[in-house]
């Protein structure tokens, strides 16, 4: 059937109008939607290009291995790199066991009672709390510990001795561990939700088969459910970590310094660790900075050359995030190939 091409604009009310008018409206809407969608792509490209352009020539080995400086040409991101690494390692140590443990409890043990419902609603609300509030929480609870310790505190202890001359300061103060604990609380809801989904995806028949063989609930979880849910959990954890990597506001509240010319524990190379193993223990209780805060600091500087330094820092940050996300995608991909129910 051939459609007659209208030679003039169809008069409203005529059949020709009815059959063609809708299409124009439709095409307009579709174009609008498409433009909106692809504009996000355009924004991403512009962002990456403009940042890379400004970082060109400023991102080099010297940048990666030097500490910060008042002179833009000499400024480097080493303190932030090492500080971020320590931060992330300790955050993982706290958030993953607690997060996965909570998810296991909610999915495998909890019955549908009031307490469980409170926990679930609470998790949904926590996810919407601004990150800076977590910083304030961390400030009072970890950095200052409600003022309970120290000279003017209730308990007149200044610290708990650890190993060698390493001491756990009480209160924690503006240290890596305060930041790590605050960030752990921040990403906890993310990990719990991701782990819950991974656990839910394990078929119930697997649990039933294990229980019917005389396994206890924990044995079933440990030997069957968790191994099966592991890829999903790992993907969620990696994504939560990449979120923590870019977090700035809570750490600013904790008191991560902006102009820092040292690494936690003064560890700048493996040689230092060999010479003084106690430095590994001291590092988490040292003051620190992280990459996003260094970037923040450079952005605020008056000297315009610092914008190039900031751009270089941003490129480093984005590369790290890219690697982390790529890792998550890789894990997801590998698990989907191997899993056969």
């Amino acid at each position: 059937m051939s459609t007659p091409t209208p030679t003039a604009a169809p008069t409203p009310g005529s059949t020709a109008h009815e059959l063609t008018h809708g299409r124009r409206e439709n095409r307009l809407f579709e174009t609008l939607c498409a433009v909106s969608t692809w504009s996000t792509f355009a924004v991403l490209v512009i962002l990456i290009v403009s940042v890379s352009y400004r970082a060109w020539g400023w991102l080099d080995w010297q940048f990666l291995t030097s500490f910060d400086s008042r002179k833009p040409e000499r400024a480097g991101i080493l303190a932030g790199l090492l500080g971020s690494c320590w931060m992330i390692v300790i955050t993982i140590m706290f958030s993953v066991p607690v997060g996965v443990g909570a998810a296991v409890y909610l999915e495998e043990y909890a019955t549908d009672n009031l307490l469980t419902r409170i926990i679930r609603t609470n998790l949904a609300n926590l996810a919407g709390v601004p990150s800076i509030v977590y910083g304030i929480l961390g400030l009072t609870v970890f950095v200052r510990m409600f003022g309970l310790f120290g000279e003017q505190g209730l308990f007149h202890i200044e610290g708990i001795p650890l190993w060698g001359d390493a001491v756990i300061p009480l209160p924690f103060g503006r240290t890596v561990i305060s930041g790590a604990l605050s960030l752990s609380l921040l990403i906890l809801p993310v990990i719990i939700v991701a782990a819950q989904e991974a656990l839910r995806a394990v078929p119930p028949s697997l649990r039933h088969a294990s229980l019917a063989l005389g396994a206890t609930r924990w044995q079933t979880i440990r030997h069957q459910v968790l191994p099966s849910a592991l890829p999903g959990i790992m993907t969620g954890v990696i994504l939560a970590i990449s979120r923590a990597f870019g977090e700035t506001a809570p750490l600013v509240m904790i008191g991560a310094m902006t102009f820092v010319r040292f690494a936690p524990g003064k560890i700048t190379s493996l040689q230092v660790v060999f010479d003084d193993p106690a430095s590994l223990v001291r590092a988490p209780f040292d003051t620190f900075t992280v990459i996003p805060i260094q970037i923040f600091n450079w952005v605020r500087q008056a000297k315009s050359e610092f914008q190039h330094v900031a751009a270089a820092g941003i490129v480093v940050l984005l590369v790290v995030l890219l690697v982390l996300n790529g890792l998550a995608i890789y894990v997801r991909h590998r698990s989907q190939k191997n899993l056969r129910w």
Partner: protein
Amino acid sequence: MSSMLNAFSDLVKTRDGQSDSESATPDQRTTKIETNGLDFYYGDQQALFDISMTIPERAVTALIGPSGCGKSTFLRTLNRMNDIIEGTRLTGQVLLEGIDIYAPAIDVVALRKKVGMVFQKSTPFPKSIFDNIAYGPRIAGLRDRRKLTEIVESSLKRAALWDEVKDRINESAMALSGGQQQRLCIARALATSPDVLLMDEPASALDPASTARVEDLIFELKENYTIVIVTHNMQQAARVSDTTAFFFQGRLIEVGDTRQLFTNPKQKQTEDYITGRFG
């Protein structure tokens, strides 16, 4: 007697001819499991009404009935698998060799090692064949590699799977065929040395050749194990079992010697079901 009942009597006669005549008649076997006045509830809904029956030792008892009649629910009360469903409760007694398995003092984990279960859809763990079979003994605390290997081998032999898998015992169990997987699940259940084996429609997901092998296996196993099997396939029940119980809408309508139930049922409902008037 209708021609249907005749067909069944033929089936039952054939099985008799194959068995050793040394097996005792149902009356002479000792009772392994006994239920008294068993009522079962899913929340407010009652699923089983006053079930009282005995399950003889070292014999095959078949539970038949239309879908939704409660036979699978009843099966699961025998190893307390219903406990993992929320909101279920039960009144009455389930006695295993005279011991009430729902008494507070009973350890469910130990019970399930004694009363094993095979499910309708085979569920091999995503591990090697060896690890699948060894799972039960391992979680019971057995670590000795040599003993585990012995148990794995004997279980697989008893499940008539050893010859087919002995060369690939460390390969993934997921690579086996459907029939092999089901026999693997049987071997896995045997590895904990149970006294009783519960089977919930073990062959319904299998092709006829595998079904026949599973049925042969059941026939062999009954020399050493008490077997309770749920099946919706009446011919299977007639072929394989010594005692048959007919369930309908949560009630036990009739239970008795298979031969007798299929050729001369006492209840009209039983006869109607067997001859295919419903279900």
